[in-house]
């Protein structure tokens, strides 16, 4: 099995554990099982989904608005990946943190595509199956944190980002992104810190 596929399956399984939590949490927040599954199938972006079910009790506007703010970064991943991904309407549905992280910075176009599609498909299947199980059965995995799984995503992103930090400019941008995101974190809503970091990257890239 190519290592990219193996890594993609690993990401799918680790993400699936959170799907169990999401399904259980969605039902606890008052959604029906079909509604919980519809969110995972149609929205398919974990952070937005957790925010949506967490806020929907307090009103639809905040829930929808926060989900969109958290989902905005998926669009930004599309910019470097657009030349590689067809058909676009299908690729768009699978465009999330994990699939983008596994695709950007690959040596060849075919590795970029494999990283994207393998990760997108693995996470999509695991996430949706787990959502259904969690919604039907309640919290099968009471706290993914007990298994340290909340540290899995940042570690995965670090491992995928590290090879790109061998040059000065990406290193400077990464440092500025971390600094600016953490600086604004206490003052702004969910989803905004990473968008501030994106603005910093934009400024750095446009500077002649």
């Amino acid at each position: 099995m190519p290592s990219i596929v193996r890594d993609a399956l690993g990401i799918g399984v680790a993400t699936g554990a959170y799907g169990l939590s999401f399904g259980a949490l969605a039902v606890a927040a008052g959604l029906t099982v079909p509604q919980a599954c519809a969110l995972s199938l149609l929205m398919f972006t974990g952070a937005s989904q957790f925010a949506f079910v967490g806020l929907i009790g307090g009103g639809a506007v905040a829930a929808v608005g926060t989900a969109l703010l958290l989902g905005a970064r998926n669009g930004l991943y599309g910019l470097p990946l657009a030349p590689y991904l067809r058909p676009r309407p299908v690729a768009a549905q699978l465009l999330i943190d994990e699939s983008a992280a596994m695709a950007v910075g690959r040596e060849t176009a075919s590795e970029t595509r494999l990283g994207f599609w393998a990760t997108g498909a693995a996470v999509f299947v695991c996430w949706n199956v787990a959502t259904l199980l969690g919604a039907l059965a309640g919290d099968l995995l009471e706290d993914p944190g007990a298994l340290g799984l909340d540290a899995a995503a940042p570690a995965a992103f670090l491992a995928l980002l590290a090879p790109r930090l061998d040059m000065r400019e990406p290193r400077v941008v990464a440092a500025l992104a971390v600094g600016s995101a953490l600086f604004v974190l206490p003052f702004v809503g969910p989803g905004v810190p990473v968008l501030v970091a994106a603005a910093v990257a934009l400024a750095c890239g446009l500077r002649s």
Partner: protein
Amino acid sequence: MWTPILIAAGGCYALKLAGLSVPRRLLDGPRARRVALLLPVALLAALIATQTFAGGFDARAAGLAAAVVAVLARAPFLVVVAAAAATTALLRLVS
């Protein structure tokens, strides 16, 4: 409940599709290409920081430190992820 679900899901999908549909010629200049390459670096770096430190300084920070060590030791991808999860879980177990 279905209306906000469908609006939010449709909006999230539209955002994804919009990014993939930006016309190629807008991304063709050297500056635009540089921005497109730097964006994921900034987004992932910011995600690492916010997901690790959103709850203050806790066991996840130790997990990230373990991941840094594993990356520097050139460990395979899944070993890096497992090292972070195991470190975080162990620390929670003993504290």
